[in-house]
């Protein structure tokens, strides 16, 4: 089975299953429906998964997470050193993708928190809301209006403009 999600980031709410206290002899329709669902949907799906996993057990393969070495930035390249420019550009593109994924993960956490808490999410998810606001604000500042042809140089120029605006 694939790895489970991070239980710390997506905490499950406490179970609210009530203690069974049968006072009538009539059958419990909720129990009947749950058993029906179990036998008609859950059990066939789980057995199918078990069968397919047994077939697949012989051809188990693995994949790894690729880690890239850090190379000198655009600011540390000599002028006219185009190979250095290329490496810095590729590194910037990888970092851009990573930052996009970070924003997506933070968004997902906020969404899950809102779903969990229901009506009182503004109070209970304050940490997630603050993290989301901070992350998106920083992302907007750094990569905001660069457009579809964004590049490391344009991002650097945007940073320069930000510094000039901050100084002025």
């Amino acid at each position: 089975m694939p790895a489970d999600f991070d239980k710390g980031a997506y905490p499950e709410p406490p179970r609210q299953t009530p203690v069974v206290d049968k006072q009538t002899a009539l059958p419990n329709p909720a129990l009947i429906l749950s058993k029906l669902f179990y036998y008609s949907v859950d059990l066939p799906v789980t057995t199918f998964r078990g069968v397919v996993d047994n077939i697949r057990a012989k051809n188990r393969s693995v994949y790894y997470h690729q880690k890239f070495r850090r190379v000198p930035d655009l600011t540390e390249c000599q002028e006219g050193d185009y190979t250095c420019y290329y490496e810095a550009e590729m590194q910037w593109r990888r970092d851009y993708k990573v930052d996009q994924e970070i924003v997506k993960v933070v968004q997902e956490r906020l969404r899950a928190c809102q779903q969990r808490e229901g009506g009182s999410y503004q109070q209970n998810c304050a940490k997630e809301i603050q993290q989301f606001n901070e992350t998106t604000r920083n992302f907007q500042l750094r990569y905001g209006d660069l457009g579809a042809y964004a590049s490391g140089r344009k991002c650097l120029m945007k940073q320069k403009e930000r510094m000039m605006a901050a100084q002025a």
Partner: protein
Amino acid sequence: MVAMSLLRAAAAFTARLSPLKSGNNAANLLTRTLPRTDKVAVRWGHGKKMFVVKATDFYDRRFLRLLQYYILLTGIPVAVIVTCVNVFIGEAELVETPEGYEPEYWEYYKHPISRWIARTFYDSPVKDYEKMMAAIQIEKEKADLRLTQLEVRRQMRQKGDGPWFQVETLNKELIDNSPKATPDN
């Protein structure tokens, strides 16, 4: 009886209006019977066969049939292959890279078909990167050489002490310095 005479009068009137219709001449005006269309001599099977006149749909149905055929010709084998790959060779699991082990470039993909495509057809991304860097290096050297060539031209043209921009003078040995007979020789 009165009704019969009324009917006969009505039949005679319609015969007068359209005398050329087949049942309307005097011989069978009174003795003809109205055709009963509900009691025809067929069994009630699927109803009376009707010839429905409509525009041809032969070409449309042929197009759809051929479309279906050509799509399924490769669609079904592809679907069967992908299903078999997913059932018999499952997707890979993510593990930590073991110490000192350099994974091959196709071992960074999850689905077995992506791994196969990367292994069989594509070059390693490292190789692509290096090819790009080599192309950039060659172009950089070409650009540098062109710039130096322009600078050298400028210098040689200006100073005149280089091999370029030399104008060939006449061969001194071709000049005849012997005294001539007339002054205008």
